[in-house]
């Protein structure tokens, strides 16, 4: 499966010029408010006709202004989960769920009500009205409704934006299951890094209406030249890790990452579970030899891959830790004093790791370690 987008559209002074390809899995469109994310998904869904461009899903053309092709929204079979759920208030949950299903040609129906209801855990809500649902339930029903139309592509426009942390934590596992089990490629709009880290297979960065980068999520987030887009406080890459075991005496969990072993406050995860750890650039210190006499538990050996001096006192480093990218933010003086340069072997001391605890109230938290 693939989605090819290459469009141009002008809205007043704003100009959207976007070209990217999304493949199987979940592609996050990431950017600040006003970067053009929603406009872009509206164009893909057929809610907005762009000035120029071409859109194709699996080679089937939805839009081609040069050839005069514009497939109307109801024939695109592109599912859309909106920021506000947009459930039909005059229909019950069951009727909402079956709305798109009913309009799907019988031969194209891949999803069944029972399966979707079980996947999203909404069996108890079927006879209720949308006005009687909580925020989290509403979004789950909206997900199910889009899914039951058996779309070829699922668009999700900040589906968690209106929810508090606890409700987000309630929905995220369902979106992960959709990504991993339903087999529908997903384009997911977000401006939240925790969501990117948790969900993204690949990442498309939008800035001022233009695509500035696209690629595998870890790769894009580990790029030095893009870190400014994420903001100085939040910039940083993520690494994959696996639970090795738990240390009861100190209440720690041992994790295996490509660059070595990490220890974090106990996680409620089975041995062998995989998770992504977000490591912010400002939480990484550099040592030129194995650190000793430090309270920090985690130091991984690696190599400096790239160096970027910023205006003022700050320098940013991209580190290669056993094949994974991590960013570090240090002072220019440190670069000078330690003679830091690309290729140099170093130790990265990680002061804090941000990760999600599954099934907990807050879906992201930081640990000083």
């Amino acid at each position, binding site marked *: 499966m693939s989605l090819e987008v290459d469009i141009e559209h002008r809205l007043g002074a704003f100009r959207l010029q976007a070209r990217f390809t999304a493949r199987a899995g979940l592609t996050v469109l990431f950017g600040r408010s006003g970067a053009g994310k929603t406009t872009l998904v509206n164009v893909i*869904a*057929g*809610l907005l006709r762009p000035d120029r461009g071409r859109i194709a899903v699996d080679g089937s053309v939805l839009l081609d202004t040069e050839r005069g092709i514009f497939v*109307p*929204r*109801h*024939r*695109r*079979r*592109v*599912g*859309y989960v*909106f920021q*506000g759920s*947009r*459930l*039909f*208030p*005059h229909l019950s949950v069951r009727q909402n769920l079956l*709305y*798109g299903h009913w*309009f*799907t040609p019988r031969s194209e129906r891949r999803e069944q009500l029972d399966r979707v209801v079980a996947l999203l855990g909404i069996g108890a809500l079927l006879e209720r*009205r*949308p*006005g*009687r649902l909580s925020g989290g339930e509403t979004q789950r029903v909206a997900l199910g*409704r*889009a899914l039951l*139309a058996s779309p070829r592509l699922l668009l999700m426009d900040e589906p968690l934006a209106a929810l508090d942390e606890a409700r987000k934590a309630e929905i995220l596992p369902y979106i992960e299951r959709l990504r991993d089990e339903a087999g529908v490629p997903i384009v997911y709009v977000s401006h939240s890094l925790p969501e990117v880290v948790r969900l993204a297979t690949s990442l498309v960065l939008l800035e001022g209406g233009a695509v500035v980068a696209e690629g595998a999520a870890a790769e894009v987030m580990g790029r030095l030249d893009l870190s400014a887009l994420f903001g100085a406080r939040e910039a940083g890459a993520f690494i994959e890790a696996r639970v090795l075991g738990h240390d009861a005496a100190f209440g720690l969990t041992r994790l295996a990452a490509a660059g070595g072993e990490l220890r974090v406050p106990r996680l409620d995860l089975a041995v062998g579970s995989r998770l992504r750890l977000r490591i912010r650039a400002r939480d990484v210190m550099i040592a030129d030899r194995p650190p000793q006499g430090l309270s920090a538990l985690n130091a991984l050996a690696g190599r400096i891959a790239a160096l970027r001096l910023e205006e003022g006192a700050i320098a940013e480093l991209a580190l290669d830790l056993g094949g994974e990218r991590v960013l570090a933010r240090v002072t220019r003086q440190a670069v000078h004093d330690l003679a830091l340069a690309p290729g140099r072997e170093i130790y990265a001391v990680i002061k804090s790791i941000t990760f999600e605890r599954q099934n907990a109230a807050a879906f992201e938290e930081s640990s000083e370690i």
Partner: protein
Amino acid sequence: MFLLDFRPDEITAIKRSRRGATGAAAGSLPLGILTALLLARGRFWGRGALDILVHLPLVLPPVVTGYVLLLLFGRHGPIGHFLEATIGVVFAFRWTGAALASAVMGFPLMVRAIRLGIEAVDRRLEEAAGTLGAPPLWVFFTVTLPLMLPGIIAGTILAFARSLGEFGATITFVSNIPGETETVPTAIFSLTQVPGGDAGALRLTLVAILLSVVALVASEVAARGAARRVAGL
């Protein structure tokens, strides 16, 4: 009891009124919905003129409206002559004419209420229906129409109530023929013009009040139900 001692022509007037008002409200509903849709959502040349035309009966003296109807729909009027020649429908001095006059007078109120109902419909829900595979006409019947129901109910009741009370245009267009075009208001008017008509006028006045109260209560109940539905409760 003289209050319940209705005379036959009074009964006929009540029946005519009810039938005329019901016919006027129900008959003008499809056109009312269409006009309200055009005014609320249409982007076409002449929309302002249509808006003015629809609202004219609201501001014109009813006698003028009645006279214009007589000119157009009378047996020698262009439309009246055409309709009589083709489908054999006559409006002049018939109860159908009274219903037509009521419908025209109630039309602006109906269109205004339905238009407000349409403007209250969240268009983003229609977009959502489209992305779920519903063609435009289906979107209208499954999403737009049910959601504008409160406006439709309000508009129909308003038009019905306005029709019950219609006097000026009716008496100008179809006169006041007992048993044919005489309605409750015109009957009350003529009863007050003759000696000894007070009791009949009072009876019909009470009937008019009763009909109005029933209409208002019915509209309130229906509107509440529809509003709950539209709110998703």
